[in-house]
């Protein structure tokens, strides 16, 4: 943290020298400039992280120098030093782009705390730049919208490439909002079936009685509303990939039908007598605990073994380190472009807030947060104030908390986040409205009046 390069600009030699001596004791590298032109010459030769700038100087004063530095060295942090009684001048300097000010003589505690705060911000900015460089290197790998430079994601990308080569069923697990469908699409686009269709269906969003027809299709007259024959998703996926999201939601009977279709690579449409052949690769996904599903009997073990020849797990966003900033930056670019609002970056406190947040809703939550921040943000950068709503996130349930309690908390929080809009909350939770209503009833959750 002590690799902060500091330039002290003060016309008084005693101040310059004592400040340098004092800062060097903490290990900072300090250069001294006696006036504005001297300071600009220093800045043109080498970069500085922090400039401690006296406001009152003969010739080019602190304000003029501040404007020059802001224009030509925008990344340099400037702290104004002012004599007792000239606060107005310091406030003007803050409006002109200074990060802070100190009033001479200041308490050692104030100086050290300010410098350490700035050093931390610089460290964060450096980390961000490093992460951005890593992202640039990664972007060449073409994994579509899947972004990540963290170790866990790099390992996932490698796994995607390996899995794509083997034409076997894959089961993707991961929390809601982690990007399971993106991974499935990446596998598809890297596989030999890339030129074929990618057909996705969210099994949790389709009522049980319609799911069979959605998957296998139906013949005309197969049931009351079947006024014409319809091709099912299995058939649509011929020569391509079929992605069954929330596979844990499908019934045992449907699992048997799917199992047979997978084994025989053929099936019958609902109400049909003709065997339909379809050659597809199956990728399933669930956010649920598969072992618990097996134990409760909700998932048949023969079905599980058939669909999870190659299991993959997507880490939650909170375990992806630098990826939070990378993704936030990517979504910021996207949304500011979409609504034509020139917001170029986040402030260091905003980055800190983003990094500290728990992201229980994962990437989906991050997208919503950035979209909202872009809407409310007023400056050229998103500040912590624009993300103040993040501070209200409840603590993560403690490990070992009963599932019922965790589920109730999560549902309530999602409903609150969605302003008690049931359809929106159901979408976020990736379940249908009816299922959400049942869960709300089970946990006694009602909309507050």
């Amino acid at each position, binding site marked *: *943290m*002590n690799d902060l390069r500091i330039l002290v600009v003060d016309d*008084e030699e*005693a*101040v310059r*020298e*004592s*400040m340098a*001596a*004092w800062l*060097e*004791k*903490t*290990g900072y590298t300090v250069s001294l400039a006696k006036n504005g032109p001297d300071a600009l010459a220093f800045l043109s030769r080498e970069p500085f992280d922090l400039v401690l700038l006296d406001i009152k100087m003969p010739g080019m004063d602190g304000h003029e120098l501040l404007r020059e530095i802001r224009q030509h060295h925008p990344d340099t942090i400037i702290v104004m*030093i002012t004599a007792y009684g000239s606060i107005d001048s310091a406030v003007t300097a803050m409006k002109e782009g200074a990060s802070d000010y*100190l009033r*001479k*003589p*200041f*308490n*050692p*505690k104030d*100086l*050290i*705390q300010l410098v350490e705060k700035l050093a931390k911000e610089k460290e964060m900015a450096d980390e961000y730049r490093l992460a951005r460089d890593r992202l640039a290197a990664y972007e060449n790998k073409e994994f579509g919208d899947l972004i990540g430079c963290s170790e866990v994601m790099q390992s996932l990308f490698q796994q995607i490439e390996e899995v794509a080569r083997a034409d076997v069923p894959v089961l993707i697990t991961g929390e809601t909002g982690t990007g399971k469908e993106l991974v499935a699409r990446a596998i598809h686009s890297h596989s030999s079936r890339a030129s074929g269709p990618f057909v996705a269906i969210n099994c949790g969003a389709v009522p049980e009685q319609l799911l069979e027809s959605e998957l296998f299709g139906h013949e005309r007259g197969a049931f009351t509303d079947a006024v014409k024959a319809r091709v099912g998703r299995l058939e649509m996926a011929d020569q391509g990939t079929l992605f069954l999201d929330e596979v844990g939601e499908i019934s045992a009977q449907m699992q048997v039908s799917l199992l047979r279709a997978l084994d025989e690579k053929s099936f019958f449409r609902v109400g049909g007598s003709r065997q339909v052949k379809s050659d597809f690769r199956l990728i399933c996904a669930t956010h649920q605990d598969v072992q618990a599903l097996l134990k409760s009997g909700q998932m048949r073990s023969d079905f599980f073994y058939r669909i999870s020849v190659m299991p993959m797990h997507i880490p939650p966003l909170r375990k992806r380190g630098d990826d939070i900033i990378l993704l936030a930056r990517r979504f910021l670019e996207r949304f500011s472009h979409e609504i034509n609002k020139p917001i170029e970056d986040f402030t260091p406190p905003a980055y800190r807030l983003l990094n500290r947040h728990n992201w229980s809703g994962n990437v989906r939550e991050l997208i919503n947060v950035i979209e909202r921040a872009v809407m409310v943000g007023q400056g050229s950068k998103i500040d912590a104030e624009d993300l103040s709503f993040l501070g209200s996130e409840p603590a993560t349930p403690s490990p070992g908390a009963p599932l019922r309690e965790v589920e109730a908390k999560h549902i309530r929080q999602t409903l609150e986040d969605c302003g008690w809009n049931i359809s929106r909350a159901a979408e976020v939770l990736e379940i249908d409205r009816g299922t959400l209503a049942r869960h709300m009833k089970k946990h006694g959750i009602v909309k507050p009046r």
Partner: protein
Amino acid sequence: MWQVPVEHRSGCEEKPLTKRRHVEVVALGQVEELAISVAAANIQAILGLMARVVPPWSDPDYAVLPGRGQYNAIPVLKELSRQAENNTLRLGITSADLCLPFLSFVYGEAQVNGKAAVISLHRLKRGPDGKTAPSGLFLQRLAKVAIHETAHVIGMTHCRQQGCIMCFSLELEFLDALSMSFCPDCDLDRRRRVRI
């Protein structure tokens, strides 16, 4: 804390010292003798540099900052380092309140990789209740600041390891919480520098 008396000679009786670097501890004006010998003893025992008490110098009133009534540490350091022989480092001890032109006060100041350090007893005497601190606590503080500032003179910088004597002390409570020793990293650095 070491309180053993150390070698105490006047300038004219002085025998040639070894070629090893050593610290001259000097009172600047009226300073209690025990404080001087405690500083010297602890520099020798804990920092590992030979230390000796030399006759007092006059009060550094040339360093008084007009309008503040405090002493600017920088001219005092310049005066202490003036004409110091190659192997001699100087630690000045004053009862006056020290400051820097831009800082409201300092417990001590030093030239990093230089020749001199100066410490002030003025604020070290304050007790937690606003009264005078007990003698033992005051001497402990003095020893810590003396070791800390002299360590800067041999090139050591501030440390972030909790409890290490090279931590920067913002307040007396923080100084009191420091141990009278170096953390393992600083101790390695100290040994390397003292051997030079």
